[in-house]
Every structure is written in structure tokens, then in C-alpha cells.
């Protein structure tokens, strides 16, 4: 069931351990209807062309500076997003999702119509805490400016039929970040099995 506005305000006023937290809300209008608007934060990870080789999810220990660069764009400034460019950003707000809720991150259609995709991994697990990493991509043919502080996405919260074990206790990889985080795909337990099949890097065969 999707939480409506009254339910969202109620959840945000409960005792700390079970509180839905989306803070700071710079404007109470961010919570309207059945969703909460989130703003674009100021930290970004720019993906760039690697000089040394491809990204191998099995070998994520390689120096990430070869294919990414962290930048900070303060509110009031802007950053260009070129066609087909991928940038990792983060929501400005810090989020705590109670154990019996989950959320979906949905891009705002106003940005979508300019070609901007805001999030691809759109589910936020029960118990998640931190600032959401947003995968920002420009699918249009024209560069678009990104302005930190603007509303880029909305969160829609759903109740679960049964309280879930906390995200951290389930082994979630992205708990507690305050800015964008790069992929931690290599932490997936599946890789051990895939390695055992003799997979891994083709160069190692």
C-alpha cells in the first residue's frame, strides 16, 4: 500500500527508531500528495574514459581514479551533463526508511522530458539509512545543466506486509553514505561462485 500525505507526516513524527526521516526538507511543499521530493546534492562522481582498461566487476580493487573523478558543485553553481554521459550524484536529503516500509525513487517527468534519467536502481530497501546515490544520465542529444539544490526525484513509500530485517543486517552494501558511492558490485557473494566456474577475467585464462 502506498503511504499518503497524512501517513507520511505521521511516520515522520514517530519515535526515532521507527521514524521515517527525510531531512533537511528545505520546503514543507517537498512532501505533497503521496510522495516526497528530493533535491540534487552537491557531490558527484564523474565517469571518464579509462586510460588503462575496462571496468571489471570482478577486479574492483583497481584504482578508481583511472575512470572516475569526484567533484563538488556548490548550490548556486551548475554542472553540465553531456549526451550519453553518466554521472553519479546523491540526494541532498538524508534518508532513514523504517523496517516496515520500502520506497521507490522516481524521476520527475519535467527533467525526464529534457532527457535526464535520474535513477536506474530505484528500490530503497527497508532499514536503509544514508543519502541516496542517483545515477544521472542524459539520454537526449543536447547537453543539460544540473543545478544542485533542485528537486530531481520523488520517493514513493510502500508498506510491507511483514516487517523486514534491517538492510544492514541483511548485508546491504550501501548503508550510511553521505554522498554518492561507486558500485560495490564486487561485494556480491555471487562472484565467488562465478570464479569457481573458472570465469573471472578472460586475461587470466
Amino acid at each position: 500500500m502506498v503511504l499518503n500525505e497524512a501517513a507520511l507526516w505521521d511516520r515522520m513524527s514517530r519515535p526515532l527508531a521507527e521514524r521515517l526521516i527525510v531531512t533537511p526538507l528545505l520546503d514543507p511543499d517537498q512532501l505533497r500528495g503521496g510522495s516526497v521530493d528530493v533535491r540534487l546534492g552537491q557531490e558527484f562522481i564523474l565517469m571518464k574514459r579509462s586510460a588503462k582498461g575496462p571496468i571489471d566487476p570482478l577486479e574492483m580493487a583497481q584504482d578508481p581514479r583511472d575512470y572516475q573523478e569526484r567533484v563538488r558543485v556548490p548550490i548556486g553553481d551548475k554542472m553540465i551533463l553531456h549526451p550519453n554521459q553518466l554521472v553519479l550524484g546523491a540526494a541532498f536529503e538524508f534518508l532513514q526508511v523504517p523496517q516496515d516500509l520500502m520506497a521507490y525513487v522516481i524521476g520527475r517527468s519535467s527533467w525526464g522530458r529534457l532527457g535526464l534519467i535520474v535513477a536506474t536502481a530505484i528500490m530503497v530497501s527497508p532499514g536503509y539509512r544514508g543519502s541516496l546515490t542517483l545515477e544521472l544520465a542524459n539520454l537526449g542529444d543536447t547537453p543539460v545543466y544540473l543545478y544542485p539544490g533542485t528537486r530531481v526525484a520523488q520517493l514513493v513509500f510502500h508498506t510491507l506486509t511483514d516487517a523486514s530485517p534491517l538492510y544492514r543486517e541483511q548485508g546491504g552494501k550501501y548503508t550510511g553514505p553521505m554522498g554518492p558511492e561507486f558500485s560495490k558490485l564486487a561485494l556480491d557473494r555471487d562472484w565467488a561462485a562465478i570464479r569457481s566456474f573458472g570465469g573471472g577475467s578472460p586475461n587470466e585464462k
Partner: protein
Amino acid sequence: MWQDEAFKEWRERLKALVPPQALSLLGGLEPTDQVSWLRRLNRNAHPVAEGISGWLSQLDSRSWMVVPGDSWDMIDNDQVVLFAYPEYLGSDPLAMCAIASVWAGTRGERWDAAARLLGPILILGAQEGRWSPSYFPEKISAFGRAYAAYLPQWGLPVPANLDANDGGEACWAPVPNYTPYQEQLNFGVVPHEVAGEGISGEVAVLLALYGTPDESRSRLAGMAYRAIEGFWLKQAFREVP
């Protein structure tokens, strides 16, 4: 000597990247001090150091700039105050409050202004920022008199010669209610009020950060600063017609 020419050329290269406002401060310095400041000015300050410096600059009518260095330092002229901070502390908003003590130096009227704005975190921030000049014991003593009732909860010794009738200096700001924010930080969330409201003020959050466990200090400092930054932005949003 060719080495002198090479030094001058290198110094000019460093100067080329420095804002004119900052360059105006360096004119009267010895060449080695000038180069030391130029090297600092060629590095970006941490956003937290910049943010806290911007907030504290309300203490002075001049522009404040902050740069990373090895230790605390300050130079100024009629228009600009330039601080260097220990780079390894730049991400901690409470430690960066030491900027206020560095600025105050030995000038009583500046200490009064800083104590009115920051209250207890004037001294706690200086300690956390590892700023302890020779005149500091007397400032700590005044702080102890002003906040004697709070010293045990801050893990600080109550001075033995404390006069029970002495209310301390009049200029020290009162202690805000910081315990809800401390509870939130220790719980691992960004300080906030219920229903998504941001915090009520900077000092309460910084005081909440003081005394958090060392092992989680770096993470909690980031959370505290997010709350403070949100507070500033909310004020700025409100001022827009």
C-alpha cells in the same frame, strides 16, 4: 644566481593561480613565508572548513578565506582575513570552529563577540581543533566559570577553586538543548526535528558532536555538517521572495 631566478619564476607560477584578494595579503611577508602561504593558497579548502569559516565570518566586517595547511595560522589586512587550518581536521565542523579563537587571538572584544555567538563551542572547538596558544589557560578558566554546571556532562574537570557565587562571564551564550541531536547522532542519523524539519541552530548540533565516540567521529561529523548546511540553505530559501 640561476637558483634565485628559478625561485622567482616558480613563485610567479604559484601567484598566477591565487585570487588577487589573497595576493594583497602577501606583499609584506618574508619570501619564505610568502611561498608557504602561496603553496597553501594553491590547494582547495575542504567544503566543511569553507562553510564554517563563512558562518564565523559574521564576527568581522572583512572577507574571510581559509586554506589547508599543516597548522593554524592567520594573516590579515583591512579587507581580508586569511586562515590556514590543519588539513587533516578540515572535515570536522567542530574542530573548524577553532577559527574563531585563532581570529580572536589576545583581543578581549573579539573573545566577547565569539563567546556571544558560539558559547561553549568556542573553547570546545579550539580544543578539538588542537589550538592551544599560551594565553589559552585563562580563556579555559573563564569558560569553566561560565559553564561549571555542564562540565561533568562534557567529561571535563570542574575547577577546584571555582567560586560558587561567580556566574562566569556575562558574554557567554547559554547552552542550547543539544541532547536530542546527540541521541540522533549516536543512533546514526543526521540531526533533525520531527516531520523532516531541519535543526534549530548550529551550536546545538556542534555541541552534540562533541563527546561522540572517537571511532565514529568522522562519520558523525559528516552527518552534523549535513544538518548545519541544511539549516543555512533553509534560511537562504526563506529569504528568497
